[in-house]
């Protein structure tokens, strides 16, 4: 499961030895995130974001459990209980703002984490399972965040739920009854609010389970690294503790500085004012938009405005889900023998000048009203999005000639690698 040179856990204190015999939890921690886990020595700060995602997941669970103590999932009172939390519960406002902005930051961090994976092609063998679990986590996060946003029962909660569940109606034949079944009624109401609360409480723990599998799968090959060259010998690695615990600690500090600046000084900057108006099924807001982290996919949904064989709405729904589902197939769409974008000149150009600006455009257009020219711009961006993953990536990865790779991580860091080059390198871990 790890490299042969990984340090063995040797407890000295009798209490720890007792534990190690009966329940080797300390040994588990030592091998997972301690000195017993060798990690490539050249990881950049982009590799901090996995740990940060884990931190924000825990923060959401802790603040969420406290909020649930004071919240009531009933359409008559839900909006009022949120105000009760904001006004009367001790530090309730801090819990709520931390939870609301925590969701946003969780997505920021996970988006960076995913795009790190896309640039360094971390999804390539032997890390396919880590990636598949990652995309699953992302889907679960989206479901959780969507249902969480409904709970305060403001105008955007209600109308967002109306629009998103309305998408099911695009499915032929089974769509409309499916929507009614999911909502427990024809429109979002008390039944929907209750089940959304139940699921919103449950799903984070499902995510936690998926994260444990994700990290378990990660510990089999170990982390990749910015060169994409696999670990060859001990000199390529450093023990996780103290090296990466220190680096992750510093990264967490920086992330929290930015995060709490939002919580204390701009707590509503990422939200929508309409959600401070209580839900009113009789009054439709001028622009219904989801939370910002759904914008790219919302832009793709709204880009399909033409009935071609199938109704436009169905195309939009199919495209929106496919936009995420394509990520599942990346390990098999990308043929390159090389992982890291640093050594893939053409791939890198398409990443920085194609995918990244297109994502930025989709983010922007998803939040803009469904008017021209935003719709036309999203249409071009959507076309590129699908071309990028499904056409450009497979073709570029099979025709491009990658730049020469360093012999090893050690050589990349130090300029030479005598130990591994001499031929007496430790056997490569599989």
């Amino acid at each position, binding site marked *: 499961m790890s490299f042969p040179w990984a340090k063995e856990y040797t407890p000295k204190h009798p209490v720890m030895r007792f534990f190690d015999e009966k329940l080797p939890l300390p040994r588990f921690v030592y091998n997972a995130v301690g000195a017993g886990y060798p990690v490539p*020595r050249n990881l950049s700060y982009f590799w901090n974001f996995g740990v940060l995602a884990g931190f924000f997941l825990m923060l959401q669970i802790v603040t969420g459990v406290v909020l649930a103590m004071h919240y009531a999932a009933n359409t008559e009172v839900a909006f009022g209980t949120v*105000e009760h939390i*904001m*006004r009367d519960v001790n530090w309730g*406002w*801090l819990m709520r*703002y931390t939870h609301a902005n925590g969701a946003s930051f969780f997505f920021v961090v996970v988006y960076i984490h995913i795009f790190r994976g896309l640039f360094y092609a971390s999804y390539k063998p032997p890390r396919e399972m880590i990636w598949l679990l990652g995309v699953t986590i992302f889907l679960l996060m989206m479901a959780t965040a969507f249902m969480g946003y409904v709970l305060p029962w403001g105008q955007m909660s209600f109308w967002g739920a109306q629009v998103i569940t309305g998408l099911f109606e695009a499915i032929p034949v089974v769509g409309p009854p499916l929507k009614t079944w999911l909502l427990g009624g024809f429109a979002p109401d008390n039944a929907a609010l209750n089940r959304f609360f139940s699921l919103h409480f449950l799903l984070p723990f499902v995510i936690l389970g998926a994260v444990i599998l994700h990290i378990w799968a990660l510990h089999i090959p170990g982390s990749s690294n910015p060169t994409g060259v696999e670990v060859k010998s*001990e*000199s390529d690695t450093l023990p996780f503790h*103290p*090296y990466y615990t*220190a*680096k992750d*600690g*510093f990264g*967490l*500090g*920086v992330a*929290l*500085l930015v995060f*709490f*600046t939002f919580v*204390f*000084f701009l*707590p*509503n900057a990422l939200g929508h*004012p*309409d959600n401070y*108006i209580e839900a009113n099924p009789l009054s439709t807001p*001028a622009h219904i938009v989801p939370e910002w982290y759904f914008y790219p996919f919302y832009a793709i949904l709204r*880009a*399909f*405005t*033409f009935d*071609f064989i199938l109704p*436009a709405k169905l*195309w939009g729904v199919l*495209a929106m889900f*496919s936009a995420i589902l394509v990520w599942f*197939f990346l390990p*098999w769409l990308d*043929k390159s023998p090389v992982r890291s974008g640093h050594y893939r000149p053409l791939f890198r150009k398409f990443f920085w000048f194609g995918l990244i600006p297109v994502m930025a455009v989709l983010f922007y257009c998803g939040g803009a009203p469904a008017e*021209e*020219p935003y*719709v*036309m711009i999203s*249409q*071009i961006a*959507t*076309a590129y999005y*699908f*071309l990028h*993953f*499904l*056409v450009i990536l*497979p073709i570029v990865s099979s025709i491009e000639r990658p730049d020469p790779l360093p012999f090893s991580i*050690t050589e990349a*860091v*130090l300029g030479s690698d005598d*130990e591994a080059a001499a031929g007496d390198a430790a056997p490569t871990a599989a």
Partner: protein
Amino acid sequence: MIRLVGILIGLGFTFVVLLAFVTGAYTWSTEEVAETAESVFHETAHGPEAGYSFDGPFGTWDLAQLQRGYQVYKEVCSACHSLNYVAIRDLEQLGYSEDQVKAEAASFQVPGINPDTGEDTMRPALPTDYFPSPYPNSVAAAAANNNAIPPDLSLMTKARHHGSDYVYSLLTGYQEVPAQLREEFPDATPAPGLYYNPYFANLNLAMAPPLTADGQVTYADGTEATISQMAQDVAAFLTWTAEPQLIKRKQTGWPVLGFLLFATILAWLAKKQIWAGAKRRKD
């Protein structure tokens, strides 16, 4: 195989979305996009020239202003608007004493039950009561206001973009309907019972100008009650009702950020020291 299927699906989506683009672009280039009255006449909200005491990361409440704003709410706005999420006891945060709040509470009548007969009656409010609504229900509210329901004001400044500025602009922004609008957009001129205000999203709202004359309220602290003064005072008061913990929040933020900065610097130094050896380490 998987790549072939992928390429086909990719080209399929691209084809359909580009078809949508072409048809969209065609309509867009051939159809004249009609200007709307809103796009021409709507104005962005702005606050009073001097700004508010609670602005910025170091802002604080101006309690005298909040008290004046409360007076404007009570004497003017409360005739039509409720303040459902604010309890009368919360007034203590504006600098009123416990006794003052008790007396203030007693000046409101709230629904109660006659302790002897169990019949519905009205009783004087207690500090723990919430501000009573001017109308018994939304039907009554709509009936009294030309079919528009005066919204609850507790969260108003958070429920609009730049809410404090918005309330100020809205209250001071009533105007004569511009001649240009009458000419170019006759449909957008206010219907009977509506009033023209360029800060309101669709320009015409059902609220008659509530602040109409200087000196409409007589401030206890002697401040001159100009329309602009009353508007900014009540906007400040509504900022407080929407977020009573605003100042506490900012004041809590600074020590938290200070501590985090300190901890982050320590973490950076620790990281630097731990990694110092690793740059050359070859074992």
